[in-house]
């Protein structure tokens, strides 16, 4: 059995720990560190100095030539110890990194740099000494390189704990701190301008970097400008996509307020000693600057889990990932409880938008809302509150937008909710306010954008048509015809005697109509404050008899043959679309067919429902001829009708697309089992039509007979 030497053990540990380290580095995002590991992590800053010092010594040792100083086993042990320490420190570093709030970019460099150091240290152990000895140049380079790697990457670690300026040369920066002075003494520069510059500009212009020779650390330097002169105002006002825009696109941008503060202050001459107090209280710079609170970037934002606040009726969400600000929406007013709102008290300082539209709110709810002191946007549309109730909203100093649509507001009291300087937008709609009073408010508060909406109550508009909700137009026995209109409070008038419906004389629709004979229903709706609708009409045909068979003597065009002969007696009416398979269409021939009854039947009236669409070359039927037979072989003429006058009246201006019925009455007829019909089409379309000379189409669906 081979003796296990301590050297072997240490080397084996390296073989375990280094791949492990690599793995952790790759999947660091998924790593969860418990309390014990994070305690181990705390040792990182303690232990790290040993491998650094050792590493520097080893570099020097390798660089110079390590033969004469140490014996080989000692040397090897030292290298191994160094490698082990380096790896352990890196490991601790990974654990500690999960616990704190560090600059992500620096951390990333430090993390992989630490890994590189561990692996380089391991390399020294793995690669035989003779290899180094044989290559002096490589040896020297390695020595220098290793020193540089150690210095650069461990310095990143220093920056993480001691700030970006760790170990940088002392700088000539005045007043880098935000000053706490009472408002009576503080200057505009100290109160607002300087904090803005410090937060958003001096990292590049004044701190460790001085880009474009511009320093924004003192008023003289600001006025002096950079290598392009003083372009401060110009650059911050460029559009974001302009290359010269400042701050650069990827950096934190100036807010609208900050932009205004700098602009106004510079316009005043950039006076360093101008105190806030010396400004006019109504001056916009005073308003902006006195409200300005520099964002505190160092303080880690607290982000409690919001699951407990969310329910089916309340949605509570962070503005975005990493934000501490919260948006709240309430839904389904019928389930609203004040308790839902009370529950939000724990996070009330973080809530910036609150949407309570359609919630049945009361005064007590308003009191709770009044505690949400950082609220910027409040939606109280249709909340059933009264103006008196919301007068209590006195603590919402940061409120920018308030929506009060649907709230009944007394003109005199509206002004009481407007606190100058706070609100920027107010949405008031359908509030029963007179335009005149609103206008005076709008002129009185020019800084507030009022959206009053269109009040169209008084504008006169035309009603849309009612709908006759009976698809079938064929009356076999009787038919129920409902008429519907969707607007509340309309009066539906109708006629069944072919007269035009009017608001006075025509009957008012109350219940569905019951029809049992050929009827044209005409209907129209009326309402006060509206123009009456167009007339809607629909004709219902009585078809008391039904034929048993239809035998088509001429075949319809293959494209428009429906379901064959039965198409015209299936009680399904063809609609305006002639290609829907419910029509029989003829153009090359007349339409000829035989209608057969099992028992001889007397016909008094036959109605052909036909389509006319001149744009599609579909013209009226020219004539209808009826013949009858007892045996189905010899027919005798009964009646014929000529309709050619209809299409003769058409001119170039004609553009008809409608369904029309052609009725033929048969006098004094006997009962026959066989009837033969011939429907003639127009053989030559007149010259005014683009299809002149070609035969016109006829389209027929449904034949009714009584």
């Amino acid at each position: 059995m081979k003796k296990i030497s301590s050297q072997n053990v240490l080397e084996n540990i390296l073989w375990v720990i280094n791949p492990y380290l690599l793995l952790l580095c790759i999947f660091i995002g998924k790593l969860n560190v418990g309390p014990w590991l994070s305690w181990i992590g705390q040792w990182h800053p303690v232990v790290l100095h040993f491998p650094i010092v050792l590493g520097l010594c080893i570099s020097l040792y390798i660089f110079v030539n390590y033969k004469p100083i140490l014996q080989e086993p000692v040397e090897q042990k030292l290298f191994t110890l160094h490698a082990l320490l380096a790896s352990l420190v890196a490991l601790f570093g990974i654990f500690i990194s999960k616990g704190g709030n560090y600059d992500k970019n620096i951390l990333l460099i430090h993390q992989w740099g630490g890994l590189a150091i561990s692996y380089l240290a391991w390399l020294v152990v793995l690669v035989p000494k003779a290899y180094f000895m044989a290559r002096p140049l490589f040896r020297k380079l390695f020595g220098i390189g290793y020193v540089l790697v150690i210095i650069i990457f461990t310095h990143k670690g220093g920056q993480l704990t001691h700030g970006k300026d760790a170990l940088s040369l002392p700088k000539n920066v005045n007043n880098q701190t935000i000053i706490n002075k009472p408002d009576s003494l503080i200057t505009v520069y100290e109160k607002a301008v300087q904090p803005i510059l410090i937060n958003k500009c001096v990292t590049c212009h004044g701190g460790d970097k001085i880009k474009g020779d511009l320093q924004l650390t003192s008023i003289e330097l600001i006025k002096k400008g950079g290598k392009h002169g003083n372009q401060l105002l110009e650059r911050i006002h460029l559009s974001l996509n302009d290359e010269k825009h400042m701050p650069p696109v990827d950096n934190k941008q100036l807010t609208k307020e900050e932009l205004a503060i700098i602009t106004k202050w510079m316009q005043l001459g950039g006076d360093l000693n101008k105190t806030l107090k010396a400004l006019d209280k109504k001056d916009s710079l005073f308003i902006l600057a006195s409200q300005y609170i520099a964002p505190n970037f160092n303080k880690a934002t607290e982000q409690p889990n919001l699951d407990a606040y969310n329910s089916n009726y309340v949605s509570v969400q962070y503005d975005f990932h990493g934000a501490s600000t919260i948006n709240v929406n309430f839904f389904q007013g019928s389930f609203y409880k004040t308790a839902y709102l009370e529950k939000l008290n724990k996070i009330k300082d973080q809530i910036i938008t609150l949407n309570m539209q359609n919630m049945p709110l009361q005064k007590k709810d308003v009191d709770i809302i009044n505690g949400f002191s950082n609220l910027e946007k409040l939606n109280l549309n249709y909340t059933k509150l009264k103006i008196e109730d919301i007068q209590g909203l006195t603590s919402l100093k940061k409120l920018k937008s308030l929506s009060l649509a649907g709230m009944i507001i007394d003109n005199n009291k509206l002004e009481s909710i407007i606190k100058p300087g706070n609100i920027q937008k107010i949405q008031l709609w359908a509030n029963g306010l007179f335009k005149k009073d609103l206008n005076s408010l709008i002129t009185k508060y020019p800084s507030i954008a009022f959206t009053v909406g269109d009040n169209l109550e008084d504008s006169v508009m035309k009603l849309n048509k009612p709908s006759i909700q009976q698809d079938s137009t064929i009356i076999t026995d009787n038919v129920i015809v409902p008429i519907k209109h969707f607007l509340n409070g309309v009066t539906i008038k109708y006629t069944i005697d072919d007269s035009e419906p009017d608001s006075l004389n025509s009957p008012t629709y109350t219940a569905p109509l019951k029809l049992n004979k050929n009827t044209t229903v005409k209907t129209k709706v009326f309402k006060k404050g509206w123009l009456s609708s167009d007339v809607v009409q629909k004709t219902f045909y009585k078809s008391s008899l039904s034929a048993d068979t239809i035998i088509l003597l001429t075949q319809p065009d293959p494209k428009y043959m429906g379901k064959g002969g039965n198409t015209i007696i299936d009680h399904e009416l063809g609609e305006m679309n002639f290609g829907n398979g419910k029509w029989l269409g003829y153009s090359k021939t007349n339409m000829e067919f035989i209608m057969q009854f099992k028992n001889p039947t007397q016909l008094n009236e036959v109605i052909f429902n036909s389509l006319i669409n001149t744009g599609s070359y579909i013209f009226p039927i020219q004539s209808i001829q009826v013949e009858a037979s007892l045996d189905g072989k010899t027919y005798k003429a009964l009646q014929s009708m000529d309709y050619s006058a209809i299409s003769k009246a058409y001119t170039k201006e004609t553009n008809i697309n409608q369904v029309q019925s052609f009725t033929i009455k048969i006098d004094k007829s006997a009962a026959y089992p066989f009837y033969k019909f011939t429907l003639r089409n127009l053989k030559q379309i007149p010259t005014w039509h683009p299809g002149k000379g070609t035969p016109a189409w006829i389209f027929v669906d449904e034949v009714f007979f009584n």
Partner: protein
Amino acid sequence: MKEFIEHGLNQNRRKFLSKLSLGIGGMALGSLMIPGIFDASNEEDLFNNVLPHFAPKAKRVIYLFQNGAPSQLDLFDYKPMLQKMHGQDLPASIRGGQRLTGMTANQTKFPLAGTRFNFTQNQNTGAYFSETIPHIASISDDLCIIRSLYTEAINHDPALTFFQTGAQVGNRPSMGSWISYGLGSENKNLPAFTVLLSKGKGNGQGVYSKLWNNGFLDSIHQGVQFSSGEEPVKYLSDPEFIDRTDKRKMLDELADLNQESYKEIGDPEIVTKIQQYELAYRMQMEVPEVTSLQNEPESIVKMYGPDCLLPGTYAANCLLARKLSESGVRFVQLYHQGWDGHNNLPNELIGQCKDVDQPSAALIKDLKQRGLLDETLVIWGGEFGRTNYCQGALTKDNYGRDHHPRCFTIWMAGGGVKPGVYGETDDFGYNINTLPVHVHDFHATVLHLMGVDHEKFTFKHLGRRYRLTDVAGNVVKEIIS
């Protein structure tokens, strides 16, 4: 000396393997500490928790899709040059040999067709509007009009699919599904993505459910179609003899059974099914409240036009879109068919505008007067534009226009866009002069407005990561306020 070095470097296989086993041991130790390390879905969960990436300007989207492609030259992109050269051939230098559809590729002539309509100009923004859309013109101070959109597809279905899913073949998730997946629903009682359809009288093109499909995303993110009529969501209401407590009990039992079979089989669709039943149960309460238009005040009815009470009309859908959106639906997708004016375009256009103009403008005004416009992004536009030359017979006041993917106009309002006119086409309205905006750019911008970085928002499927913008797309910063 050389041999000496080589000897040192000679790791024999046994030694290497034995050392390696230690390394693998180290790895194994690592995997114990990171439980989800080999779990592929974990990564998606991880990013899911970090949306939105930054502060969103828009919380909800209403997309008024004008299906069939409205003619930009007769609505927004005014080109006096075309009127001057009415009937003359399109110069070959302008066309530049670019492809045409099969419908006009065989035409021997390409006579330019100037618009028949008069245009008015907004003095503040410089935007032009044709006389057919007076209501939209009246809200032009709120509109961000982009005249330089372009797409890759030249026919309806691929172009529509491209606009909705970011790809021309129909197997990717729709935009609304992506939003639903990334941001979820605000209101737990309604789906995050809903779809409303309507049809104008003009020449129409079909819309298919693949346009609001969830693709490879979980099927809970599929668009829920609200149909016209008595029952807006099909099969939602219970049979008469089931009351809500019974239903609750049944769903609980069913969920238990489903959970068991999920444990056994592990198909994520089973979990989806449970969620869908739950959502449907909660929708039973909320949907009737949201979809009932009867309680809208009369001035709202007048604003959208009285057709808004007629289920299935564009006006009704606009009103419904507002109600759904204010109730927390993230993405409301409307489609209005009938813009495909290959012939008789001016007359069809008048009819289409009559349906669309007033309700579209009313929706913007309505959102604004409720204080919701600045958090709701409204988008209005088709899948491509129409040609500057005439398809078929050209007369003084009648013409047709073919498909034109190289430039067209859409507009947006609210939700963080900057009102104004962006992009410019050439004098012929054929090519883009400035600020070309590709469909991918459009998607990237919409996601950006919702607080989502389109490059980080991915889903891993069949071994690769997919984005709505695939591997392209730049945020159009110019239009962001």
